[in-house]
Structures are given as C-alpha cells and as structure tokens.
C-alpha cells in the first residue's frame, strides 16, 4: 500500500474541514514562523529541510527540497543541512553511550 501520496500535500489545508479555528491558528503561526525575521527565509528553509529529514516526513522533505531551491540554495548547502540533521540524530544516539557506560560501570567490578 502506498501510504503517503505526494498529491496529498496539496490537501494540507483541508485539515480545516474538521476544525477551522485551530487550523487557522496553526497556519497563521506557520506563516509567521517562516517570514523573514532575525533569521532569513533561506536560513529557515534550510532548518526546515534538516528537521524534515530528522522527523522523516515525506511531505516536508518534498516541500522543503523545493522551497530551498526557490530560496536560492544549492545542492551542497542542502546536503550539508541534512548532514547537520544526521549528525544530531546520530550524535543523539551515540551520546547515550555515556548512559550505557554509566550503567556498565555501576554494575561492573
């Protein structure tokens, strides 16, 4: 079964059908978050691309791969952003090695 369909991304706004008030609040917030601020729109797009990979959301990956190109990013910058995501994800697993070591040391002679 193809669970994720790329054309479903266009239906994101349809979530308003069951709760328009909360949907409006979310989309207004979403728009405000991605507007140019202390960070540029491009920096925000690269952060979103990295997070999309961390949370492994297919819709977000498609959306922010495209968005990053439309913000003038090149392939190398985009891949570096994903490596940041991978480093944090990998690092998050690896740093728990300390927990493992703490436990091993606690129970070992």
């Amino acid at each position, binding site marked *: 079964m193809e669970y994720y369909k790329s054309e479903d991304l266009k239906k994101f706004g349809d979530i308003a059908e069951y709760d328009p008030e909360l949907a409006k609040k979310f989309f207004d917030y979403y728009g405000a978050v991605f507007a140019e601020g202390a960070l*540029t729109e*491009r920096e925000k797009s690269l952060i979103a691309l990295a997070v999309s990979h961390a949370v492994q959301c297919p819709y977000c990956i498609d959306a922010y791969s495209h968005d990053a*190109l*439309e*913000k*003038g990013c090149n*392939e190398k910058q985009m891949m570096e952003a994903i490596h940041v995501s991978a480093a944090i994800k990998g690092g998050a697993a690896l740093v728990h090695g300390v927990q493992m070591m703490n436990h091993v040391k606690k129970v070992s002679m």
Partner: protein
Amino acid sequence: MVKSLKFRHSILSDSAEQINILKKFDESSFESYVKKSGFEKFLSRKIEIFQINMGKMCNQTCKHCHVDAGPDRKEIMTKETMMQCLEALENSDIQTVDLTGGAPEMNPDFKWFVEEIKKLNRHIIVRCNLTIILANPKFHYLPKFFSENRIEVVSSLPYYQKSNTDRQRGDGVFESSIKALKLLNESGYGKENSGLILNLVYNPTGAFLPANQSSLEKDFKTELFSKHGIVFNNLFTITNMPISRFLEYLLDSGNFEYYMEKLISSFNPSSVPNVMCRNTISIGWDGYLYDCDFNQMLDIKVNHSSPDHIKDFNTESLNSREIMTGNHCFGCTAGTGSSCGGAVV
C-alpha cells in the same frame, strides 16, 4: 552539443503544438486570472522598450532556451528589416532598444546596426551570452565596442557555480563566461562610477521558481567577487517559460503538470500591471511584431487591429493595443513576477 528542436524535427518545434499542450490548463486560463485581477481588457501602455530579436543563430544550445536557438538555426534579421526598424525608431520617441537573439552579435550586420541606433541617440541593451566574446577571434572586439558605444550589457549566468551553469547552458560555459566577465570588467563594465552597466540574469536550473532577487544578488556578488574578482551591477531573476526547449524538458522529466500548477498557484495579481508586454514591443527576425519575445516564439502576433509588421509600425495604435495572452503567461506573473528586467514586484 544538443541540437535545436527544429533540427531534430521535434513536434515541439511547431508553435501550434506547444499552444495545444498549454491548453490543458484552459480551465484556469490566464485570461480568467487577469480578469479577476481587475483587468477587463488587458491593454498595453506607451511603448518604452523596442526589443529586437536579431536572429535565432547562437553559439550555445541551452536546455531551457525559449527561442530554440543554436548553431543550426539560420534565421537572422536582414539589413533591410534593420533599416525598417531604424525608420520606425526615428519616427518614435521610444528611448530604449533591447537587442536579443540567439546571439545578436552573430548577425553580420550587428555592428553596423548598433552604430546606426546610436546615431539616433537611444539607449541600447545587448543581451550577450558572454561565451560569444571568446567563441571566435572575430568577436574579441566586443567588450571595447560595447564600452565605446555605452551599451548596457545583460548576460545570463544561471548560477555562480560551474555545475549548475553547465548543466543548463552546456559544458564549459561557466569557465568561458567567467573569462568573458573578466574582460568586460577590464573594459570598465560593472565598475563603480564607470557608467558602464553590466547586469546578470539568473534563471532556475529546473522546474522551480527563482529565489528572491535581492537576496540572490547579494550571493552572486559575494561569490563572484571572492572566487573570481568579478563585479557587476544588478542581478535579474527570470522565471523559465513553459515553452520550447524548457517545455521539452518539463515533458521529458515528468514535471509539466507540476510546474504549471506551481505557476498558476503562485499567480500574483500585483505583478500584472508591471509585466513587460505592457511597455514593450517585440520585433521578430523577419520584422513581425509581438507583445513579447515569448509570444514571438509561439507565433502569436500583436492583436489583429494593430499593424503587425515593422514596415507598418505605428506607435499610436500599438500604444493601446490589447495584449495577446495564453497560459504560458503564468510564467511572468508567478511569485514576484518575471520580465526581461527581472522581478516586477
């Protein structure tokens, strides 16, 4: 090197076929969007730019070219048509002449034509693809010639890196373009207070919209200066039109529907008053008149109630003509809009 659609006898070399493909989106037609923006009739304003396509011959065969230009195209403007252009200019107060192609410099009468326009004291823009300057020793005169005639040079460089540029414009184009830009800089182009204007054109290397013009201009300036010591004045971001060779790319890569939906959903009503067809007249290599270079390539001549050949040029009737539109026009109204001078919003 890639051959033109015409050389390959591609079905897309037929403009009627292209228009037919674009009709797939007639349910959300450009005309209806323009009407919704408050334009019951989409009329031109006073003509300010006289854009002349001097021919389809070019030393490059870029993958996105809306002209389907290339070395195998032989259509070029004759001296007789150029003389008709000069006469039309002389009898009008249009101040800017924009020379394009193909590579306009490949027309054997290019130099003569520029000098004649100069005698009429008009501002001249040459859309130079850069590599032509180095393509053959007979073109090495160009930087000096441009500067002596105070010509504004507008040149395509789709990205500040080799890989993206060469993917679109052909192997070796980036390095050759960098050399040509250095020669233009040596002639004073792009230098502060020289008055010699060098503008670059960015267009996306795929099925996506251009980035914000001012933000990308900063990147181009930083990268080109730090890596190559190159300076320039402005960057124009231009959206790829879903016609000709870019249409071929869209169809072959399965991106046609996606790209059209993107253009349509990004329609920006505030771009409509500023699109280039409203203050431009486009003259084909054979002297026929069009609302823009894209209509020219689709063989959509100016509205029938207006004179449609340069020999009958009449600013009075052309100044308030009804502009001919089609679904390709969404390319000029998406996002921050697009024109030969970049974003329009």
